[in-house]
């Protein structure tokens, strides 16, 4: 069994959190509140030391006055708390939206729209390997049927009905895969904690 007090604190906090699975209790509440407090403290100190100090206050202290511009823009966010000058908050928000849109929109179209469209198009190269060719056809059918399912401008009658039905089957398979992966993720977290309790704490496993 480990003699490191931090391992013991970690183990007890883990058990306190797990106690919620039985029912809500003061031990769980204590661990939950402690977590929120520690996390907030960590974030504040981390940002101060690693973001504000090196990126703003140290350059300003060294006489680099250009950094007054981001400082002023940042302070304008707090204008929201003073109704008379509340309109000032629009300046940094406008700046962020303009910068963000300019950076993101072309990249977004290229990476998430055009490249994904290219991935759906079947070319002779798709059939160089038979299995890949079959999957390329399945993907094309899946994309078209799913898009038809979300096409609400026309009632799903005639040819649209079976196509949209097939579309919802693809969607359901997607949901099933997501659910399966989610179960695996959550079980992994439990395994991680059990490995910690049995290993570093109790020393029963490597």
């Amino acid at each position: 069994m480990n003699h490191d007090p931090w391992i013991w604190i970690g183990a007890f906090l883990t058990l306190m959190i797990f106690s919620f699975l039985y029912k809500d209790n003061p031990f769980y509440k204590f661990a939950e509140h402690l977590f929120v407090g520690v996390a907030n403290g960590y974030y504040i100190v981390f940002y101060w030391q690693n973001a504000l100090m090196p990126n703003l206050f140290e350059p300003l202290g060294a006489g680099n006055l250009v950094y007054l511009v981001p400082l002023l823009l940042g302070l304008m966010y707090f204008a929201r708390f003073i109704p008379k000058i509340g309109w000032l908050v629009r300046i940094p928000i406008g700046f962020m939206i303009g910068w963000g849109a300019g950076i993101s929109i072309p990249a977004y179209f290229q990476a998430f729209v055009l490249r994904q469209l290219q991935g759906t198009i079947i070319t002779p190269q798709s059939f160089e390997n038979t299995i890949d060719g079959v999957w390329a056809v399945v993907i094309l059918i899946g994309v078209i049927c799913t898009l038809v399912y979300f096409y609400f401008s026309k009632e799903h009658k005639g040819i649209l009905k079976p196509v949209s039905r097939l579309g919802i089957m693809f969607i359901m398979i997607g949901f099933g895969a997501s659910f399966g992966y989610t179960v695996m993720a959550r079980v992994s977290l439990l395994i991680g904690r059990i490995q910690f309790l049995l290993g570093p704490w109790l020393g029963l496993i490597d």
Partner: protein
Amino acid sequence: MKWYEAISKIDRRIIYLLLTVFVILPFFVPFKIRQNIMPQTQRLFDFVESIPPDDKVVMISFDYTPQTMPECHPMAIALLKHCFARNIPVLGLSFDIQAPGLAVEAFTTVVNELNLKASNYDDSLFYGKDYVYLGWKSGFTAAVLDMGESIAGVFPRDYFKHPVDSLPLMQKTKNYKDVAIAIVLSASAYPEYWVLYPQSRYGVKVGAGLTAVMAPKYYPFLQTGQFSGMMSGMKGAAEYEHLIVEKGYTKKLGRAETGMNSQSIVHLLIITIIILGNIGFFFSRRDQKQS
């Protein structure tokens, strides 16, 4: 209460207890379930295999959190072992605020383990020459775009406050041209942003190590070739561990591979519970219809 009503009303605490027992059991009753390697993990492994030794760096972005450590940390350990075994230099960095401690822990664990086995000076790993951890940076978008021009411009000092220009590895790693692949180990949306910004603008090859919850969303990026490979959850990590053992880079299996025994058993339990629940539901509904 009829039997089918009983099985659809099992107390959730009994299910939690069963889950815990099924997770613990495989650690004490050893057995081996064969891992089949998924193509996306094999692709990532093959990509790292194809990088020439002592040439370009593998950039690993450590962006996972303590909550997702069981899934992403074994990926980091396995990747580092693979790169160091092939003399591929590693450049680590983080954009998630909770990640730096975990990244340093991963480097320390692997480097200490390999240096203990090193038979001579040339086999040993040295900070600054074989690997560098740049630390954390705020402002993800601006940082990843600026690294296309100069990595040292974005990270003037590394995590340990050394001037980056003074490190031998960084003298030959100026920007993305010197990066073979950026592998993002993440529990949030960082991998798609690596595709969105550095890949779109600079053509950076991107690989990913994701939590299982995220994996389904990222399969389209594999199909288009935007991801050069991907590890999905604890299974992906176990597969990568399996591949490096199979190739002879290490003898010791990692935590993910041992955890996968529990994972497999628990999945069988969950499938059984789902089937029982459905049987209970269908029989109860039949009773309701008849009455």
